[in-house]
């Protein structure tokens, strides 16, 4: 049996989650200290992938990253194409999982007591240090929750991926794509096997995170 969907899915979700973590937390940090119309517009843009059907998101990505799209044209100058390649699966996964990361991180950061941030500032800490040593550690549980959501969403991503990356066995065929085609072809056992693999990965992830947070609490002596 060809195990390539497993490796492709794992690599795609891990890389996508890492990118989502940095972009999502960064955007949330920027947004949590801003008010006004522009900030709301940014909110809407980040929420869009959650509202639109994944296939539609994929279609937009195809228009942007495609050979005739603005970013696609730019890449062509360096003789590179991203559509129908492995990076395309990462792009799709990042775009659909970013809203979950962004919302969780933003909610967590806005829950942080502003007095603590003020206190750090009066003690002479730079904004970066305030964020890194006060805001982020306090918002950490929310960030972890967002990361789990983002990873799960990236692992399950199907519609946008199929649109921008196509189905190329051994290159862009992720586990959800394998399951879809197995179901459509009536290969129920193959479909169930891969569903099992997906569930196993999720359980391992959740178990790992649970164990790790318990460990953190024990060493830090919180609760």
């Amino acid at each position, binding site marked *: 049996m060809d195990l390539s969907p497993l490796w492709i899915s794992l690599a795609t979700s891990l890389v996508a989650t890492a990118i989502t973590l940095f972009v999502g937390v960064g955007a949330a940090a920027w947004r949590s200290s801003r008010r006004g119309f522009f900030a709301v517009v940014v909110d809407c843009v980040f929420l869009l992938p959650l509202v639109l059907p994944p296939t539609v998101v994929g279609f937009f990505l195809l228009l942007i990253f495609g050979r005739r799209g603005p970013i696609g044209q730019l890449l062509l100058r360096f003789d590179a194409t991203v559509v129908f390649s492995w990076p395309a699966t990462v792009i799709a996964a990042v775009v659909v999982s970013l809203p979950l990361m962004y919302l969780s991180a933003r909610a967590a950061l806005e829950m942080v007591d502003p007095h603590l941030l003020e206190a750090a500032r009066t003690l002479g800490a730079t904004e970066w240090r305030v964020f890194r040593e006060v805001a982020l550690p306090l918002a950490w549980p929310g960030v972890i929750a967002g990361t789990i959501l983002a990873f799960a969403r990236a692992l399950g991503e199907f519609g946008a991926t199929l649109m921008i990356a196509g189905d*190329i066995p051994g290159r862009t065929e992720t586990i959800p794509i394998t399951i879809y085609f197995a179901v459509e072809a009536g290969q129920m056992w193959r479909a169930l096997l891969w569903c099992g693999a997906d569930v196993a990965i999720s359980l391992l992830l959740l178990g790992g995170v649970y164990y790790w947070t318990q460990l953190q609490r024990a060493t830090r002596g919180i609760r």
Partner: protein
Amino acid sequence: MSNLPDGFKMRRLAVAGLLIFFVAVAAFPVTGLGQQGGAITVSAAISLKDALDEIAPMYEKRVPGAKIALNFGGSGTLQHQIEQGAPADVFFSAAEKQMNAMEEEGLLLNGTRRDIVLNTLVLIAPNDSKVVENFGDLARPEVKAVALGEPNTVPAGLYAQQTLEHLRLLEAVRKKIVYAKDVRAVLTFVETGNADAGFVYGTDARTSSMVRVVETATADSHDEIVYPAAVLKATKSPELAKAFLDFLAGDGARGVFVKYGFAAAENPAGKN
């Protein structure tokens, strides 16, 4: 004090209203089915959409009281829906494979299966691209991506694979193949210029002004592209369903099918 009972009353009213709403919603489809004996559901391959959207109103106009509900999807998806008990009276497939499977499972009403229309398989390329001028060009190194339906699930993809094999191009093209989940997606890939070429039905190629037909696959290069239809055994209105099948094979419907690029099947009356 008098505010509290009022509040309760309001809430009770709201709950009662919601309950009535839910009961009404739950009951609606049941009464709807019970009263309209002349309604049938046709589960048809998505590539038939344009033609059937025109044919169904024609039939409803001709037979007063008849109501044709159309449900479109991939032939494989429709097959699974019906196997799982989805309510449908007529199945109109884009390939024999799905119909054969359902016949073996005994889901068809005996003697109602017949071939309605034929389609062609064509190679398409973006309007503004000159890279692909015939099937042989697919092997050229400038051609980076060739889109076709996933052969196990999309009939058009299977025909495309057979054509490539027939032309002895499959090995040269294999590394460039991008599988799509349906013909519509193949069309999108080529329209946006992301695939240099793709295989779709002749009827699909006509729906887009952004692609051109490079070449039509010869009839001997792939299995016959035939669209069979049949009445399903689970139907509650077999007479209406049979009459609609007759209408699909008749002259009036044929004119519409031809308009959208289909050809009438050679032997529409035969085949069990």
